[in-house]
């Protein structure tokens, strides 16, 4: 799975060759895109606001003294999972 994503890096020679390739610039109209449907002004959604998520309140950490599982069960009971 991981291996399918091996990027192929271009050599310096290929980078230099790429620089010489012609660049053909087109406008949206040239390629038949309706300009009243693109761009920020025509976006159908917008982000109203954004903020860093509030930090999680610090939890309770206990050291297992032979009763770690029982204490975890107490926590679950307190939260009504059991």
């Amino acid at each position, binding site marked *: *799975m991981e291996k399918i994503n091996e990027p192929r890096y271009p050599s310096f020679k290929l980078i230099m060759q790429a620089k010489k390739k012609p660049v053909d610039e087109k406008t949206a109209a040239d390629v038949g895109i309706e300009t009243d449907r693109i761009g920020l002004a025509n*976006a*159908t*959604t*917008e*982000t*109203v*606001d*954004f*903020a*860093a*998520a*509030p930090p*999680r*309140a610090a*939890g*309770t*950490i*206990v*050291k*297992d003294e*032979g*009763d*770690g*599982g*029982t*204490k*975890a*069960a107490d*926590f*679950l*009971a307190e*939260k009504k*999972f*059991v």
Partner: protein
Amino acid sequence: MAEVLVLVDHVDGEVKKVTTELLTAARRIGEPSAVWVGDGAENGKAALAEFGAEKVYTAPAELNDYVVAPTAQLLAELAQDKGAAAILVSATAGNKEIAGRAAVKLGSGVLTDVVDVNSEVVTEHSIFGGATVTHGRVKTGVPVVAVRPNSFVPEAASGAGAEEAVSVDLPDAAKGAKVVERVVEEQGERPELTEAAVVVSGGRGVGEGKFDVVEQLADTLGAAVGASRAVVDSGWYPNQFQVGQTGKTVSPNLYIALGISGAIQHRAGMQTAKNIIAVNKDPEAPIFELADFGVVGDLHTVAPQLTEEINKRK
């Protein structure tokens, strides 16, 4: 009050929990109308009415013979006919595609991975692995909203549940991709990972061939089993159970991490869980920064004791 269309997720006539969450959310916006595609509505209808569905639109099973497009067509046409205020779907991969297609047909916009919504259909999103919260809205047309499972607590409210058969003429374009076979994935009795209310995950600390300690705890809680990438990469547990940046994103009410260090890529997939319990023998493990309750100790003694305690208290 305007109708709010809710696409029903169902298996063998049984309504999935996420649909009851969506119906609850829909009531903030307007009057929920459930949209049932396929067979089994007569069995599931009562459950929908129990969560406030005033109407239940039923569409023929043939729509499911083709991939996503017919359902998108149906939702778009219904939204137009009924003057719907919004369309809500659960944020599964397939439904997100349906949402996108329906929005294009309606000339409106789509909001995905929504975790909260208000009466004006301004939606809340938890992004960058839960590090940032954004609000969004659709500027034009009927908003199409894909809601993450476990974002709402289902609240019962009686609805009329009036059934109305609907159909749609499928253009050839909607028949481009045909479903040729359906295979039920073997996952036993456990709930689907992304929909489960409780997830118990194991990491490298569990050790090879010892995952039954994770499974046993999961089963006492009716939970789904998850795994870290270290576990999946080592071949200790199958791929589809990986939680994290390159695995599944889960947002359960309870997440229990056993022998997981809490690497940023793992946290990205689980840190929006409402309650987090961690068991790790290393007190410095970053997973404890997230934990509401943590036990520093050997998971092979703590987890079985927890399993036993839960069974005792049932």
